[in-house]
């Protein structure tokens, strides 16, 4: 995959260790990460544990959201809830047209609840999802809340 867009390359430069593996020759890595299609991007935490992956080409305005989402999911799954909340909030406020917004609202609510122990953040997220994305699976996932 090439990264011709300045804001994408800047974001990768500032936030990730960039690792490139040749799909035609890196057979051990392909096996290790169960990769069988290209382009595939695998996002790992600083210990090398996978938390997110992305297949296929996307235009830069959609791709940048997945870069933020990958960092957010890594932070969330490694208990960095304050950082996760900040990153999910950046998606919600900065990219309101993105398909990833319902997921970001869901995890923003959970992350804020984890930080504060205040369950009202779950109610707030559920209400926002019902209002703005009534048909989203992420809204259905809030039903028990």
């Amino acid at each position: 995959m090439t990264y011709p867009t300045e804001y994408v390359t800047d974001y990768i430069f500032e936030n990730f260790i960039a690792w490139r593996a040749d799909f035609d020759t890196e057979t051990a890595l392909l096996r290790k990460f169960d990769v069988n299609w290209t382009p595939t991007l695998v996002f790992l935490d600083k210990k090398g544990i996978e938390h997110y992956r992305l297949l296929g080409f996307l235009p830069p305005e959609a791709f940048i959201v997945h870069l933020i989402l990958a960092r957010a999911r890594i932070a969330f799954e490694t208990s960095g809830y304050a950082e996760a909340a900040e990153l999910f909030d950046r998606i919600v406020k900065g990219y309101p047209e993105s398909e990833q917004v319902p997921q970001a609202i869901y995890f923003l609510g959970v992350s804020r609840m984890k930080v504060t122990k205040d369950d009202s953040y779950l109610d707030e997220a559920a209400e926002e999802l019902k209002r703005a994305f009534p048909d989203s699976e992420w809204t259905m996932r809030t039903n028990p809340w």
Partner: protein
Amino acid sequence: MAKQIEWLTGEEDVMDRAKNTGKAILLDFFKPT
């Protein structure tokens, strides 16, 4: 001016950098054209 991404290719180097910087890792499986 756009920053240049420094693409690493060695797993050990990648893991050292990630450990030292605390940054996440983006692993790109690409097909050379």
